[in-house]
């Protein structure tokens, strides 16, 4: 039975400890989004070099989420947001988690083994958005607070958003290093022989 959590950002370690894989989360506060692989690479390089990032990730949330920011008059407005596949950021997420104090990573489909290890070591969790559900997910965005690294194409820039009840997001990796996706894959692999037997029976 999964639990539903309403959380406010910034997150303290105690806020994320109770989260278990399969639980649902709604978030209110500020999040930082980018869908750029080069952006994640640059964040990791800043961490390695001890340079200050344009936005503070400590106790915050970093999302592999694309965002279309439009300038309307003197205001910046988000037209839509949508998650991207998180596993492809595996080369950089462990460094980012280890060096920034980020408490929550958001994207879709889970993260790789080294990222899971880093989450367990440094106290961070992974939550998955519902991919393709941009229309409803985008309605949680209240404001575009800041955009940095304008040398990147728009969806690769670092964008700080104010959100209200963003979700439902599913806890994919908890602070203890449990991973919903690894578990499901192992279970499916374990069922393959019996599913093949069933297919052979049906075919006969």
């Amino acid at each position: 039975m999964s639990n539903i959590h309403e959380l406010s950002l910034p997150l303290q370690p105690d806020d994320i400890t109770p989260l278990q894989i399969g639980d649902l989360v709604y978030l209110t506060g500020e999040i930082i989004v980018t869908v750029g692989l080069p952006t994640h690479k640059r964040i990791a390089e800043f961490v390695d070099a001890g340079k200050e990032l344009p936005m503070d990730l400590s106790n915050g949330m970093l999302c592999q989420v694309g965002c279309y920011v439009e300038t309307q008059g003197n205001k910046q407005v988000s037209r839509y947001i949508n998650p991207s596949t998180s596993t492809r950021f595996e080369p950089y997420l462990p460094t980012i988690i280890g060096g920034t104090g980020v408490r929550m990573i958001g994207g879709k489909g889970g993260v790789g083994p080294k990222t899971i290890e880093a989450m367990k070591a440094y106290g961070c969790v992974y939550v998955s958005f519902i991919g393709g559900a941009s229309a409803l997910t985008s309605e949680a965005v209240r404001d575009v607070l800041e955009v940095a690294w304008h040398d990147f194409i728009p969806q690769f820039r670092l964008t700080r958003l104010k959100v209200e009840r963003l979700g439902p997001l599913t806890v994919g990796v908890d602070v203890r290093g449990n991973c919903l996706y690894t578990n499901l894959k192992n279970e499916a692999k374990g069922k393959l022989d019996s599913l093949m037997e069933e297919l052979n029976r049906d075919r006969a």
Partner: protein
Amino acid sequence: MIDYEQIKRVSADLYEWSLKKIPEDTKARLADAYEEETGEGARKVLNFMIQSAKRAEEKDRFLCSDAGVPVYSVKIGSQAVFSGDIKRAFADGFEELVGRIDPPLLQFVQNPLTNERSYKGKDMPIVSWDVLDGADYIDITCSPKALGSGRWATLEIFVYPSLEDIEKYIMETVIRAGSQHCPPVMIGVGIGGSFDHAAKMAKQATLRPMGTENPEPILADMEKRLFKAINKTGFGPMGQGGDTTALGIHIDFSAGHGFTPVAVCFNCWINRRTRARIYNSGNVERIE
């Protein structure tokens, strides 16, 4: 006469519609899956998908804001008569759409050699061409593709495989993709022919309307048993656990030589697909 301007407009419209509305058959299948799904969390996910798709349609917004790249399957009637350039019409239609679509598109066209992003690129849009004997129209299907489900497609060449070998390969491909391709997915399979033809058959198989019976009885049975088996893997909606991993599996085959390519590909739950015909008379018929 079917002219350049019509093809340009219709191909661009088909791409836009595919980004904002899911096909009717897919909508109905998602609604059925919501009724049949036993996982509590899985039902919440399915409901959110259905409600979000409804909102996108009502408010003229994107379903998934990753528009992917435009991919078309075009069938040219042997009796169709054209004026102007056909291939250029698709490229120009895409360029014009980028300028007018609201909400605007992000840059998704990527050069694989340099990783540069743009709104254009070599061979873009991707179009596959076929001929329909006797028809006096051009039949255009748009089914854009993005990394999310696109990266999990695969092809392997077998030599004299049994049906069991083929089914095991499909099951292993499903398990390899796991939770990653935004399930519940539409699965396409192409068996036989040649390397390129098998991949094309797999893609085209995903475009077959749901609920239609496979004309080859061996494959009709294979589709039924694989559908049941895949939905017992447990990945569920959005790969978070549940009974609904696949919306459907469609399989096509071709005669070939002793080597048998088997290609498997996936469409995410949105199953983007729109289709229209332009007739010699100038009439445009929207099919999906």
